[in-house]
């Protein structure tokens, strides 16, 4: 029996989920009992590929495809995708999830090409001032300053291809706030 601690997006607590092979008088039958918290749910599983197949819970049939990546399970079930943290694994890896929305840097919100950089290290800027313009496929996007501040470092070049999440410009917003 294997036990997993899974945390659905938005859930307060992880849930313990385990699968036990059910006693069965038929060979080759993928019959299990799933334990979710306190509940026990008999389930039959037919696999059609790695991470894919269908579940039968009672007489109800559910199709699934699962991708496991970076401590998350992306579960497609009957037409909707649910993303679930595999808590134990995430811990083992030391929580590699990227933090979101830093205000001390300009981050590429999409993978793309740097079109224009309006500032140099040491420049001061006002809130909402356009700092960098990037382009991806048919779309152009202006990245503006979150607040007033000073440019600490420019970490990209015009024409450079930048992956999603790349820090393009490091900002000094605290000092700028003090200075203004």
């Amino acid at each position, binding site marked *: 029996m294997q036990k997993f601690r899974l945390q659905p997006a938005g859930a307060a607590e992880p849930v313990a989920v385990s699968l036990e092979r059910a006693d069965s008088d038929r060979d080759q039958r993928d019959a299990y009992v799933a334990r979710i918290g306190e509940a026990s*749910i008999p389930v039959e599983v037919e696999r059609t590929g790695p991470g894919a197949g269908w579940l039968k819970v009672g007489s109800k049939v559910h199709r699934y495809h699962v991708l496991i990546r970076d401590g998350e399970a992306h579960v*497609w079930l009957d037409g909707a995708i649910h993303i679930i943290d595999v808590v134990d694994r995430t811990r083992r890896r030391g929580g590699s999830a990227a933090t979101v929305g830093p205000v001390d840097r300009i981050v590429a919100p999409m993978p793309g090409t740097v079109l224009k950089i309006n500032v140099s290290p040491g420049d001061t800027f006002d809130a909402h001032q356009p700092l960098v313009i990037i382009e991806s*496929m048919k779309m152009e996007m202006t990245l503006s300053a979150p607040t007033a501040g000073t440019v600490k470092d420019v970490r990209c070049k015009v024409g450079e291809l930048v992956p999603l999440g790349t820090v393009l410009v490091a900002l000094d917003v605290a000092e700028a706030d003090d200075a203004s």
Partner: protein
Amino acid sequence: MFKKVLIANRGEIAVRVAQTLREMGIIVVAVYSQPDRAAVHVACADEAYPLEGETAAETYLRGDKIIAIAKSHGVDAIHPGYGFLSENPEFAEACVKAGITFIGPNADVMRATGNKIVAKKTLEKAGVPVVPGWSGEGGFDAKGIANEAKKIGYPVLVKAASGGGGKGMRVVTSEKDLAGSLEAARREAKSAFGDATVFLEKFLERPRHIEFQIFGDSHGNVVHMFERECSIQRRHQKIVEETPSPALSDDLRKRMGEAAVAAAKAVNYTNAGTVEFLLDESGKFYFLEINTRLQVEHPVTEMTLRYDLVRAQVLVALGESLPFTQDELTPDGHAVEVRIYAEDSASGFLPSTGTIACYVPPAGVNIRVDSGVKQGSEVTVFYDPMLAKLICFGRTRGEAMERLALALDNFVVLGVTTNIEFLRNLIDHPDFLAGDIHTGFLEEHSIAATRAGRDEAPPMPDEVLIAAAVALRENGRSVSRAGQHGHAATLTDAPWRSADAWRGA
């Protein structure tokens, strides 16, 4: 008949064109950039030649490289698909010069339609209604323009003469914003298209985007192939297209069709093209532009008219007469297409990149999927993030939408974020189902990006946790088998794990 045709494109359109060419017994030649070395469109070809480089500018836009390949390998004709070189008159001319047939309209047609101001004038003369506006004549004089804008009536739209895809376009609601917006639009147009010319148009409220497929041959025959309603757009890009339009009466359809044919004739149109109109709420329609290519959304026309447009393109390029007359074109039933994009509908439709770990498109009666990817494909920043088009036919609009809903529910993509659930929510919207749509629909209505994000969404079913546990358990087993590879080398992450997405080509 051509013996060998090169497809100067990639993705789903290259795959789709290859099917028809191979059916016709033509040898199909593919070209591919470095990132596309393992792309589906290469596998659909009989021969394939690399284009060194990664970006579109280094590869699929390099007409010189492509013509060189065509010349040294006995290619008779080039099909440009859409985008890239498809509307480039210099490329069309270079093909002719190299003795290679360009499957599409000739350079003169492209030039006559490529500049929106010129096209508008030509068509106005031909009696096609155009959006009231100022053509840019008389030069860039701030006061004169302000007068023109006043005459047109606010809100007005500033547009780039050589533009497209929404670039260099600005809505101006009052005179005080006019000068600034003009300046900005000119700058943007200059940088994007190398041409700062802009013009003014009346901004229509809640207009519909209605386009007519047109087709001409070199014997002077021109027909329209009825309309496509493409009003559902995000970032000025269509994502849902259907035919017939719920907005057109038989009379209006007839008048718009005649205007489309008049427009095509005015520019001596040959091969496949599209005349785009805006339709306002009062039922008045205005010419917008002519696209001199096979459109992304051509499958809905193929579904209701049942002619293979690529086959017709080839025949016309060979100098044959159109394989249909206007009278033979009688559309039947209803067809709808949605574009499956790698993008995050929750964050302003930002493109999403990565490896497609799982790709299972739906299939079934009256369902067509034009795919450019397969399991294991990389979605890169280099090209458009459209993965596939899902097209459904039904006897009625309602039946087509029921089919589309089920097909979206069965379209599995894992590994990159897509707009599948967004589209599924969109087509559930009562205004959409009622056919009450316009180009601002998505700004007006808030559509949830995921099924779970809907107001009435039920809590996450236990089956999701069970499925996750089943996969983790299977994964664990494969880990212990694979030994030294650790769980990074999970089965569920192997890009090559499944059957490829062979299509009919």
